């Protein structure tokens, strides 16, 4: 039953899987993004309080959610890599890291642009913004330590330990709006339901799905490059480059 799991640890197999899967996620991303943007920018009615300014939510919230999800994925991959000693798991971690950092940066910037008209300020040191900024530094630190070692295996495992310890920040970010009275608004989406009207909600969910597919697409592209970077001396890579 676990053979599929260990098969994924094989570089040529993972490379072939990534190659085959990538066009599907590209197509899904394009479809979902168009649907989400049309729904969010055109079809959804303007907010009675914020007017059209609220529409930045369709980029801000998916970026923020992805920034947390990607670090959680990195933590999972790091754990798998340390426990089962799968080098490909570590390849996933470093492939995902810059994408997650970009999402974090995007969440901070779009939030800042949204904050200026809504709160009157570009930045405030409240719990959620500060812990999201800390997450950005965690990404940078993870990338730095994984690439700092001349032996890639040591760098992988050292980075994995760092990512696992840093993952403690994730619950702090998520629950920060509950634990502290902050300027950032509370949770709009909960498992039990949402206060948003449907016309505004479905584009948001669509954009979340679109960003997720976008992340997976970018991840498999970067993963292919990372696998080639690590396995460049293998015979299967020579055969591949000869084609």
């Amino acid at each position, binding site marked *: 039953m676990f053979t599929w799991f260990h098969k994924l640890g094989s570089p040529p197999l993972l490379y072939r899987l990534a190659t085959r899967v990538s066009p599907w996620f590209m197509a899904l991303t394009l479809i979902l993004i168009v649907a989400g943007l049309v729904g969010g920018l055109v079809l959804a009615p303007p907010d009675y309080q914020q007017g059209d300014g609220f529409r930045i939510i369709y980029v801000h919230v998916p970026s923020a959610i992805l920034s947390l999800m990607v670090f959680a994925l990195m933590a999972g991959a790091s754990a798998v890599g340390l426990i089962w000693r799968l080098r490909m798991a570590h390849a996933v971690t470093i492939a995902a890291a810059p994408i997650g950092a970009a999402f974090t940066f995007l969440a901070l910037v779009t939030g800042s642009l949204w904050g200026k008209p809504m709160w009157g300020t570009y930045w405030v040191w409240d719990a959620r913004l*500060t812990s999201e900024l800390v997450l950005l530094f965690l990404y940078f630190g993870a990338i*730095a330590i994984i690439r700092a070692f001349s*032996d890639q295996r*040591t760098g992988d*495992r050292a980075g994995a330990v760092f990512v696992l310890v840093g993952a403690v*920040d994730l619950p702090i970010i998520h629950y920060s709006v509950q634990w502290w009275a902050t300027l950032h608004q509370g949770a709009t989406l909960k498992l039990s339901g949402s206060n948003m009207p449907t016309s505004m909600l479905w584009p948001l969910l669509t954009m979340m799905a679109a960003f997720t597919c976008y992340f997976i697409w970018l991840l498999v592209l970067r993963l292919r490059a990372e696998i080639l970077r690590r396995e460049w001396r293998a015979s299967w890579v020579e055969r591949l480059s000869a084609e």
Partner: protein
Amino acid sequence: MFTELLRRELLLAWRRPGEALTPLMFFLVTSMLFPLGLSPSPDLLRPLAPGIIWVIAFLAGMLGLQGLFRADHEDGTLEQLLLTPRPLTLVILAKALGHWLVTGLPIVFGAALVADMLFMPARGIAALVAGLALGTPLLTLLGTLVAALTVTLRQAAVLAPVLILPLATPVLIFGAHSTTLVMNGQPAGQAFAALAALLILGISLLPAAAALALRISHES
């Protein structure tokens, strides 16, 4: 073996008092800079004092970081420690405790002096000392983890602050916040509880993580 290692750490620090006192000296000297650089007015310094002291305590701790494993790494003692049949976690705990007793504890007491010079009220100073007593061991433990990850790197001194900053930020936030709350007469139980919880979590998990990190950095 724990007590042997602890005694060794303290003895080595005793023989090199300059090295051991550097973080404390840095702490005291840098705190002087704030009244000089900002303004000597008590009304300006008093609300800023908790934050200033916590940040400088953090920076002073970062200064002493590399000394934790560097000397042992250079003369090969570290590799011998990795080979002992005793649990590496206990070894790390002994080293971290020794390091904190030498660098962190003086800062906890030095902070009382600095806080008085920054015009903090007595209530605030008590809260500051209590908070730092909880926070500095946690910073030492985090520093031990980062030092263990970077001990074999040549550029460790550049990378270590980048790694420890995001991990230590919650400690800084809870710590400075708890002191400020007490100074303003507000209930600070939650902040201290969070600090204590992080410390307990740190003591139980970070030495094991640092032991793993030490083994990893010596693998190749």
